[in-house]
């Protein structure tokens, strides 16, 4: 049983590696053909990536890009979740604020990013705002839905065992909603990445966004691709780890078993 399980996980790992090899192989071939002068091979991109890591350019760029991301996500992580919880708990609050977030969620927010420059200039504040605008809707709405859909039987159980308002909220409703709230945070982080890169491309070229535009201007395509792939891979790893963490903190069975 144990060995069979191990065997299967080896097999899975092998398949995953194979899919990487396949994608990189096709990339390499397409680069060698070449399909465009602006399309470097996989090996050239990898070499550029190693160069950028070794001379510190990449780390410095990531350091710059992550600052507005971390600030923005921390802000919405606290204020947005609180907002969502209040909207879920109190009808008046819901009427007041829900339409705003529904509109923000359905609007193509990227279109608003150039507008931010007019209002907030080109500094750190503008980038933080871009992250907040992208991440807030999903974080707020997930928290709201988690609270609003809290299991009514559990709430009734609380009432029958004489829970007061505080206990009802902190011992039943919020724990019951926490899985959904966390899922909202994960989706928010992934939207936040979009926000910060858009800001760096459209507002002021800094960090990874600056690397991309700079190397494109110099026609150093391997370096440009290395920067793009690096941020994509980094975002995928961060969001993937959050998903893992979510699986550990809020296993599926615990959400459904009553």
């Amino acid at each position, binding site marked *: 049983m144990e060995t069979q399980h191990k065997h299967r996980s080896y097999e899975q790992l092998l398949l995953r590696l194979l899919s990487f090899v396949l994608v990189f192989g096709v990339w390499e071939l397409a680069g060698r053909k070449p399909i465009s002068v602006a399309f470097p091979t996989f090996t050239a991109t990898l070499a550029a990536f190693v160069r950028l890591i070794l001379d510190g350019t990449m780390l410095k760029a990531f350091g710059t890009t992550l600052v507005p991301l971390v600030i923005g996500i921390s802000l919405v992580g606290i204020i947005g979740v609180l907002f969502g919880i209040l909207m879920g708990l109190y009808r008046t609050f819901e009427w007041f604020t829900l339409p705003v977030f529904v509109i923000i969620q359905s609007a193509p927010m990227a279109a608003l990013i150039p507008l931010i420059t007019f209002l907030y200039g080109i500094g750190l504040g503008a980038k933080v705002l871009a992250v907040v605008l992208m991440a807030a809707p999903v974080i707020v709405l997930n928290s709201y839905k988690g609270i609003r859909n809290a299991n009514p039987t*559990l709430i009734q159980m609380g009432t*029958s065992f004489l829970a007061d308002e505080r206990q009802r909220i902190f011992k039943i409703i919020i724990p019951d909603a926490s899985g959904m709230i966390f899922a909202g945070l994960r989706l928010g982080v992934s939207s936040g990445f979009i926000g910060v890169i858009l800001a760096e491309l459209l507002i002021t070229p800094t960090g990874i966004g600056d690397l991309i535009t700079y190397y494109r201007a110099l026609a150093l395509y391997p370096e440009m691709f290395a920067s793009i792939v690096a941020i994509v891979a980094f975002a995928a790893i961060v969001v993937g780890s959050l998903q893992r963490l979510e699986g550990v903190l809020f296993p599926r069975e615990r959400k459904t078993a009553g």
Partner: protein
Amino acid sequence: MTANVVETSPVVEVKGISKTYPGGVEAIKNIDLQIPKGKLTTLLGPSGCGKTTLLKIIAGLLPQSGGEVLIGNTPVHGPGPERAFVFQDFALLPWASVLRNVSFGLELRKVPKEERHEVARKYIKEVGLEGFEDAYPHELSGGMRQRVGLARALTVDSDILLMDEPFASVDEQTRRKLQDDLLQLLEVEKKTVIFVTHSIEEAVYVSDHVALLGPRPSTIMRVIDTRLENVQGEDIRRSKRYLDLVEDLWQILKQYLV
């Protein structure tokens, strides 16, 4: 058979209770019922007849449209410490261990941790779940989950136990075992129990009195003495008294089926 007459003094008195749901559905109409102290009284009737509605009004979980419920001469306004509820779908906190679930009623009453865990351990043992204190609900079978629900209701030391189709969500074999264990437990605990079921056999097997509810808008059609004092254990389901009672109840209920 006795109609609406009981020998011991009533502990719960239902006087002219009616319930009309918003939208105009009349669930129960002008119900009068006296629940004797220290006995198990069952509300029996077809699905959707309002048995659970009546039980939840007695529990103070639903407001009535008319009439009043008296507990020891005091009218009911909401849940109280003298009543504990056992839910059909268990209503356990999926994120909490058996120990925390069982002691949850005491936790809401702000009983110190050591003390409430001690009480909870006693009742976990009493319902036969010793060794499962640290298990989570999703790791337990349906029957075991309901034992947790029962233990939780016992820890708060209420005189009145309200059980809403407690064994409806478990399989037949488990149900019979739970019925036996409940009866054994009640010999030690001496509670007044109001039990809701749609199973005639279950009603006759577990109760001292059965109150028959008709179809919607339902009223109490008859209260029948179903004590089986002269038969014991294994022989109950074969005894003439048991079989006669099951048949009598069926004959009465049958008239109201379409």
